[in-house]
C-alpha cells in the first residue's frame, strides 16, 4: 500500500484503517477534507460536492482543490480497469501487504472472494 510507503518517506505514521473506516482519522494533512472531496466525487454526490468545493477552496486554494479532484477522478477510472480484469497484486506487493490487507479489510476485495459474495442468484436469496 503506497500510503504506508509515502508515510515512511515523510517519517509519518498514518492510520491505514481510515481507508476503509470513515469514522477514523488518517493523520494525513487535511485528511478529512480530502476524504469529503474524494467520497463525494466517487459516489457522484454532485450537490454535496458543490458545497465541499467552496469550503475546500477557502482552506486549500483553487489549485490544490483541482489537484485533489484530478487524482480522485483518475482513480475513479483506473480502479475500474482492475475491477474489470481481475488482475492479481504484484508479487512484491502481495508479499509485503499480507497483514495489512487482513487488518484493513481490503482482503475482502480479492476478486475470487467477490464471486462468492456477488454471483448470488435471486432464487438463492429467497430460500
Amino acid at each position: 500500500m503506497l500510503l504506508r510507503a509515502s508515510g515512511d518517506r515523510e517519517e509519518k505514521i498514518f492510520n491505514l484503517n481510515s481507508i476503509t473506516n470513515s469514522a477514523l482519522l488518517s493523520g494525513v494533512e487535511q485528511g478529512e477534507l480530502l476524504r469529503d472531496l474524494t467520497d463525494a466525487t466517487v459516489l457522484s454526490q454532485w450537490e454535496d460536492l458543490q458545497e465541499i468545493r467552496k469550503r475546500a477552496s477557502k482552506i486549500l486554494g483553487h489549485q490544490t482543490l483541482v489537484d485533489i479532484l484530478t487524482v480522485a477522478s483518475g482513480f475513479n477510472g483506473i480502479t475500474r480497469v482492475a475491477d474489470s480484469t481481475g488482475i492479481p497484486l504484484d508479487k512484491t506487493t502481495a508479499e509485503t501487504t499480507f497483514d495489512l490487507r487482513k487488518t484493513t479489510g481490503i482482503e475482502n476485495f480479492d476478486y475470487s472472494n467477490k464471486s462468492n459474495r456477488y454471483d448470488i442468484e435471486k432464487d438463492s436469496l429467497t430460500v
Partner: protein
Amino acid sequence: MVIMYEETEYPLREELITAHAAQWERIGQPGAFWTAEDRVAFVQEARSSQSCDFCILRKKAMSPYAVTGKHTSFTNLPSVLIDTIHRIRTDPQRITRRMFDEVLASNYSREQYIELVSVVTSATIIDTLHQALGISLPETPEINSGNPLGQKKPHLVDEGAWVPLADTKFTLTDTGMPSAPNITRAMGCVPSAVELFFGTFRHHYALKNIPMNISQSQAEYVASRVSSINECFY
C-alpha cells in the same frame, strides 16, 4: 482539436486538458477491434447508466444477479454489452469474472472486451473530472468512420487475471513497485487500449514526486479512498 474545460473557473493544468482532448478525439476513431460508432456508443451507454432505473434498483440488491430488468439505453448495442458498460460505470465494486465470461459466451473476444473497458474507463475519468468541477459534460466524440484497424499479435503471459497480461521483464523501481505493475499490463492484449487509457490517466497521478500542489501522501490517501469505495483489490 476538441476544446475541453473552457467553462471552468478552476486552474486545470494545461497538459491534462491537452491530453484529455486528444484521447477524446481518439475515442471517435476506429479502434483495433471496434468501429468509431461502437466506441462512441460505449461512451453514450456509460452516460445512460447514470440515470438508469435498473442500475439504481440493482445497486440496492444484495447481488447484481438478484434482480432482473431492462437498462435505460439510447443505443443499439447488444444487451450483453449494455449490461457490461452499465456495471463498469455504476457498480464496479461487484464485478466478478462471471460478467467477463458472459461477454465471451456471447461471441465477443477478450480483445473486444478489453477495448470496451479502455473506452469506458477513459470516458469515466474525463466525465468524472467534469462533474467534479461542476461543469457540463463534453459532447460525445466526433465519429471518424472506418473499419476496425486490427493489430499485431502482442506478447502475453497468463498470470492469473481474467485476461493474459503483457509479457514484461520484472524489475523493481526505487518506489518498491515493479517498473511495469500489473495495472499497466492488464490491457496488454490490446496495446492501443493501453495507450488510450494511460494517455488519459497519465496526468492524474505519479508514483513519486507528484507534480501537483498536494503531497505524495495526500495523493495516496485520495487514491486509497477511491480504491476502497470501488472495492479495488489491486
